[in-house]
């Protein structure tokens, strides 16, 4: 047991999370439609923003840190992310080949 959720008062955690998630979304939209960046830079930056969004959901809304015993659920998620990365990255790399001739 590592974090005791507050049972009283104002739900600060949730409000902060919400404001941040809206901000991040607006930033992503702005990055893509208002800034004239190279496409690859744009994509990398919005992906970074997406990762932050995920962390907000996990930490502020999903109570990721609550647990009883070892944090096996965090390990599963990390392993899931590793597999996800392998599948997406691997498939793109492997299927990137097109005709070898002409």
């Amino acid at each position: 047991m590592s974090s005791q959720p507050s049972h009283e008062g104002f739900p600060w955690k949730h409000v902060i999370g919400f404001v941040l998630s809206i901000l991040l979304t607006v930033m992503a939209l702005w990055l893509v439609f208002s800034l004239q960046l190279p496409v690859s830079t744009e994509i990398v930056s919005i992906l970074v923003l997406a990762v932050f969004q995920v962390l907000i959901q996990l930490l502020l809304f999903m109570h990721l840190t609550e647990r009883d015993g070892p944090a096996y659920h965090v390990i599963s998620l990390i392993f899931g992310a590793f597999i996800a990365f392998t599948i997406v990255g691997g498939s793109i790399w492997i299927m990137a080949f097109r005709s070898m001739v002409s």
Partner: protein
Amino acid sequence: MLHSILQIGDKYFMWNEGPMIWTSDALIVLTSLGIVGLLTYLKRWKWLWDEWLTTVDHKKIGIMYIIAAFAMFFRGGMDGLIIRAQLAIPNNHFLTAEHYDQVFTTHGTIMILFMAMPFIIGLMNIAVPLQIGARDVAFPYLNAMSFWLFFFGALLFNISFVIGGSPDAGWTSYAPIAGPFYDPGVGENYYLISLQIAGIGTIATGINFLVTILKMRAPGMTLMRMPMFTWSVLITSVIIIFAFPVLTVTLALLMFDRLFGAHFFSVTHGGLPMMWANLFWIWGHPEVYIVILPAFGVFSEVVSTFSHKRLFGYKAMVVSLVAIAILSFTTWVHHFFTMGAGASVNSFFSFSTMLIAVPTGVKIFNWLFTMYKGRIEFTTSMLWALAFIPNFLIGGLTGVMLASAPADYQYHNSYFLVAHFHYVLIAGTVFGVFSGLYYWWPKMFGQKLNERIGKWAFWIFMISFNMTFMPMYFVGLMGMTRRMYTYPAGLGWGPFNLIETIGALGMGLGFVVMVFDIAYTIRHPEKDLTGDPWDGRTLEWSIPSPAPEYNFAVIPEVKGIDAYWMMKHPKEQEPGPVKAVDKSKIRPIHMPNNSYRPFIISVAFFVAGFGFIWQWYWLGIPGLIVVAIGLFLRSFEYNDEHFISTEEIERTEIAAGRL
């Protein structure tokens, strides 16, 4: 009128296909009638329903998995024998190309998904809760769901043979030949939908065992004190959880192509047939480790038990399991080196594939050294485990040869490959489950299988196995490719194929002897009254055989690796049997109730699946709605557990001689 009946019969039951289908139709009807008749005659319907169909007890579910797996071994083995009959001599026309294609497809699919997997899962169910000192799995109800989903998935797959036609694009079901354009019949739909149904059940099993092992171990059993079989199941569960969703998606995409006109794998509209291969093997390679790792776990238990010695290199065994699990997700391209994805891709995946040899080797050597300075006892179970080592070695090493991409250009899709995978699947998985079956049989039924007959079965099967598959390496190098329904004379393939066929008959004979062993044992049981017939080391041997419903009257306290061994051989006192249960510690036990719902929901899945296969949406959609209602009602179920009173526990334990 008569005409239209004939037409319907033709379309759905394929009456024009000739005697094979007629015989099967007749056999199925007769067998079903026979079973129904027998049950009615013996007044066993209620018993069947109360004790089995609605059970949530992991031990009974395990037994049902194994019975189903046996039946599927029979079906898959029959397919194997038919394949061998067709290939016995050159230019044979016992089967047509169409039939042959169906037979090897059902053979491969059934053997891997409906024989090997359920056999493994059956052993998991029987042994894991007992090994970790638990009363059941984490989610007993879900466990029953898993079993019935598998069961009805398998049933759906099997009826394709007599209703509508079997799939015929190989167990790998490559697009585009499995797509709607080249394969418009229902056979492929059977493949997609039955695997989907069984696959969902398998994911649930993975989650169930992961949670069980991580959260429900007896006090004192740290991760590094778990029995090696339990470790292997833990790691296998991880692989299941992360590999099976890929299969789910892959099957669904092809289903979208076939039923709803999507273009994922078609050769037109921008589809990429190779994408199927890519996705299939992302699942398919981890899948082969799913069926081998629990077998490795069985060998660890059996070798250590019958060498009467502690497992050598416990830590290294654990680390190697983890390494294999991670590597298993990074090697899938070795199944299509010949696609031309480029030298860098092939080099990378050659290397990652070969790396798996290292942790596997660690295991092999640790088993060998477990016997070092031990006292090896040659029981039937041990014989299967011992035979595994040299035979699997051949399969594994030829796997490493296949992993060398440029060499694979010469082996790919040849009988060299067929030989490789039978050597690992049979000498690994099948020997493993047989070893486990002989090992845990007393725990399942309270009696030992007959050792004499068992040894006969072993020797016949093992020798015939080599006779069947060793020659395949050579015909592969002689240029014979897989999935050929017949071949010309004059290439030198004939004599080898004939030997293989004779070997296959021998394997069939060996299997029959083993079934006879079971039948003989039921008739002339050699009762196991001790609960510990092998001088075992782990907790399942500390309780009576067969295990009572609640497993442990008192949850044991674990002090180290091989918990029961330590209880029997305490450091200070004289070693001796420890059986008695401390009466003062008995409390009422909380157990889950039986439920008919997993069975009913799975039947609804079956009906829905059948509807989608035939694109009868009037049947498919209501089927799914029933599934949804079932799950919904389950959510409203609150009183699903009961208590077993202390008196009842005491009565049971006294009967087992423990109090």
